[in-house]
């Protein structure tokens, strides 16, 4: 019995298996391992964003050019994407997103809670199909389902990875 595989490695393997070659991100502590894996892997083009909404239109352009994208962000970034998400639905563009949660479980920072609690409903309001993983061993299956649904049916999807998986930031308290 080996150690349980970290979800970042499972998601990275899925990115490779599904020929996703454009990965954009705004960093989050919970995403750091996945970002490192993507940046180190030459066949994947990584784009560091200043704001998450750039990743939506970047994926639109990538798809016009025949490239499959993924967008990685923290839950607070979902709020920055709202209007831009319109284009994925209107144009029927696939985009799986990985959203690492703040403000949902054991949160220390009260300012993170409103957007964290609103993340899933905001995504749904904008027509994004959502999946949630609350345990490490749920992430791989949810990610695979999310990626397949996005590319098979030409729509945006989001996998929300809860703070129970990531560990809540405690600022040493």
């Amino acid at each position, binding site marked *: 019995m080996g150690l349980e595989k970290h979800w970042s490695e499972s998601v990275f393997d899925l990115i490779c298996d599904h020929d996703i070659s*454009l990965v954009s991100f705004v960093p989050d502590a919970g995403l750091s391992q996945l970002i490192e894996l993507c940046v180190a892997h030459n066949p994947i*083009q990584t*784009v*560091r*964003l*200043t*704001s998450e*909404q*750039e*990743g*939506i*239109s*970047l*994926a*639109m*352009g*990538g*798809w*016009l*050019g*025949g*490239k*499959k*994208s993924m967008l990685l962000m923290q839950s607070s970034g979902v709020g920055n994407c709202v*209007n*831009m998400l*319109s*284009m994925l639905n*209107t*144009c*029927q*563009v*696939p985009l799986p997103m990985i959203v690492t949660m703040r403000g949902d479980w054991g949160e220390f920072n009260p300012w993170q809670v409103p957007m964290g609690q609103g993340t899933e409903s905001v995504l749904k309001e904008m027509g994004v199909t959502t999946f949630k993983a609350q345990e490490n061993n749920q992430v791989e299956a949810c990610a695979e389902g999310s990626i397949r649904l996005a*590319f098979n049916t030409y729509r945006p999807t989001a996998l929300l990875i809860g703070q129970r998986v990531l560990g809540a930031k405690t600022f040493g308290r």
Partner: protein
Amino acid sequence: MTLLNRREVVACLLSPRDDLLVIAGLGAPAWDITAAGDHALNFPMWGGMGGAITTGLGLALAQPRKRVLVVTGDGELLMGLNSLATVGVSQPKNLAIVVLDNEIYGETGKQKTHTGFGVDLMSIASACGFSNSSIIRSNSELVALKKDLDGSGLIFAQVKVDPQSDELVLPPRDGALLKNRFREALLGDQCHLSN
């Protein structure tokens, strides 16, 4: 000096266009590229304000052998000003951004934009890492820009244009149609079957 006319600027940049891939920001730039001739390799945006440059970046990264031209307005660009920093970091050699700067929001009642108060987009682009960043006010400068477009290199050009509104020349509105005809023209019929 007489300001350039936006339709004439776009007509100059798009003729001949060879296999140029063209993204237009919402509003007048979308009508401008359509007035120059509706084309399968045009992607005129009807929404997503602030997203034209990053749409162009995604396309440029996906198609590194093709020249990608983003035609947008000052208001649209200002809403996504940070994307100049993102492009500056990526440095795609096949992306050209042309902003038709009339210093107003032409679709909403001609209110002044920030460029009308002196915000200097050319310098911002330059500071973001566009080594070829210029301001275009004359036909001779426009001809030089057209020549740059034919070569490779990351380009930012701020074209000062007359604030007059031109006749509406509307492209199709159906986003799925615009996307599918673009992909089919660029990638071939098989793009609908494999992904």
